[in-house]
């Protein structure tokens, strides 16, 4: 219990620092929001005016935009730590590695959710998606998808942050691992927008929750390796 409180205390301090720095510098979300918006606009124009076609592509493109910009945001959040050697110093404090991981993941999650909130209206406008049928269940899918992506993305961003080729390696390593998450998130979103006629939603939600738990556990146990040289 004491250990859990320590992990969470450390996580809170680190996440608060990341959020404060992000609110001041606006480097992770602002720079990546543009990427998300451009991705959606390009696909919107490419698919043409056919409403049915646009609505069918909406869930996939929503997650494509969130994942692409989220990957850039997570990389950016870690890159900020290395600009003046802060990442190495973070590993020298008498605190748990798990706490550091959870803190960075929480900061990443906040950036992902901010991106989700900003990208969602674009999806409604560009792809003629009706959110009224989805309601709070869609919010749950977005949160679960963002948690999973922040969990695994934080781990890989940490492992690659000190490498010169990190901008190439991060997507190369991360995208295959997030494939099940993407599949479940896109499918759950599509099912929700279609009104869940075959009651498939629960299966996808279970997959998302299992993925999130597995990745949080893996990250908590192995993130310390990223801090060692």
């Amino acid at each position: 219990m004491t250990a859990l409180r320590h992990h969470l205390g450390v996580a809170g301090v680190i996440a608060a620092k990341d959020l404060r720095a992000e609110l001041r510098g606006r480097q992770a979300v602002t720079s990546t929001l543009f990427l998300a918006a451009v991705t959606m606009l390009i696909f919107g124009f490419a698919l043409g005016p056919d409403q049915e076609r646009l609505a069918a592509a909406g869930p996939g493109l929503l997650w494509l935009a969130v994942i692409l910009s989220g990957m850039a945001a997570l990389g950016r959040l870690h890159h900020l730590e290395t600009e003046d050697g802060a990442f190495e110093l973070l590993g020298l404090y008498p605190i748990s590695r798990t706490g550091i991981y959870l803190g960075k993941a929480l900061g990443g999650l906040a950036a992902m959710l901010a991106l989700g909130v900003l990208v969602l209206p674009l999806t409604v406008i560009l792809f003629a998606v009706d959110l009224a049928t989805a309601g709070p269940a869609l919010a749950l899918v977005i949160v679960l998808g963002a948690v999973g992506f922040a969990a695994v993305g934080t781990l890989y961003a940490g492992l690659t942050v000190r490498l010169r080729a990190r901008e190439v390696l991060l997507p190369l390593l991360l995208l295959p691992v997030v494939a099940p998450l993407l599949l479940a998130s896109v499918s759950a979103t599509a099912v929700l927008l279609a009104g869940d006629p075959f009651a498939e939603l629960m299966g996808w939600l279970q997959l998302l929750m299992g993925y999130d738990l597995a990745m949080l556990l893996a990250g908590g146990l192995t993130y310390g390796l990223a801090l060692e040289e």
Partner: protein
Amino acid sequence: MSPTTIHVRPTGVPDQATPGIETRDLARLFRRSPALAGVSVRVEAGRAVAVLGANGAGKTTLLRILATALRPSFGSAAVDGIDVAERPEEIRPRVALLPHATGLYDDLTAEENLAFAAALLRIPAPDRAARVRVALERVGLVTEGDARVGRFSAGMRRRLALGRILLGHPRLVLLDEPYAALDAEGLALVDELLDEWRAVGTTVLVATHAAERLAPRMDGWMRLDNGLLAEVGGAGVTGRIAAPATAGHEPAAGAQPAGARL
């Protein structure tokens, strides 16, 4: 010529049962190239020791290993008898490092940077604000407490990084080029802090090229050359000398590290 052991008799301070720092055949490779190539050295607890040597001699690598930022490739290193590779979590509360890079966050203010460090140093919440204030005053940045660090000069960043060390009570302080980028006031601040740490018995290791300035404040010194221990001198430092050119050299007991000679 075979490696020679030099024993330097300490002045004033008795030998400690547990050395502050002890390395045995300590080596660290970077892509098969050795930054440290088998350094065996012992520094008594409570001593202030200069680590000298040319660029690339291994000074920073030695400090980073002792701070647990790097794992040794071979050999061992211990602080207060605790192995840094085997029990790093016990080392971290005892050690403070001032690295080359200051490790500060540009988008946070000076005060927020220190408050963040204070929280991670597990200083109780009610005491944090006061400790941060005292540290800012001590390094002469109290009027800049609300300013973002991104606007600071290199010297101000250095002073703030020194302030971070003052938040805790480390038993071992590791300083990597502490005089770098500092103005006259900042240089005097480092001198004062070194005197204070010595006075309270904190073990201090300073990697520097500014040997002449540092000399009066050090008990002893060691010189690294291409990852090997080339010389030791003064009080509180003993080691196995590996450089043939310097083997057999034994400084006078109690000799202070003379800047001109270093």
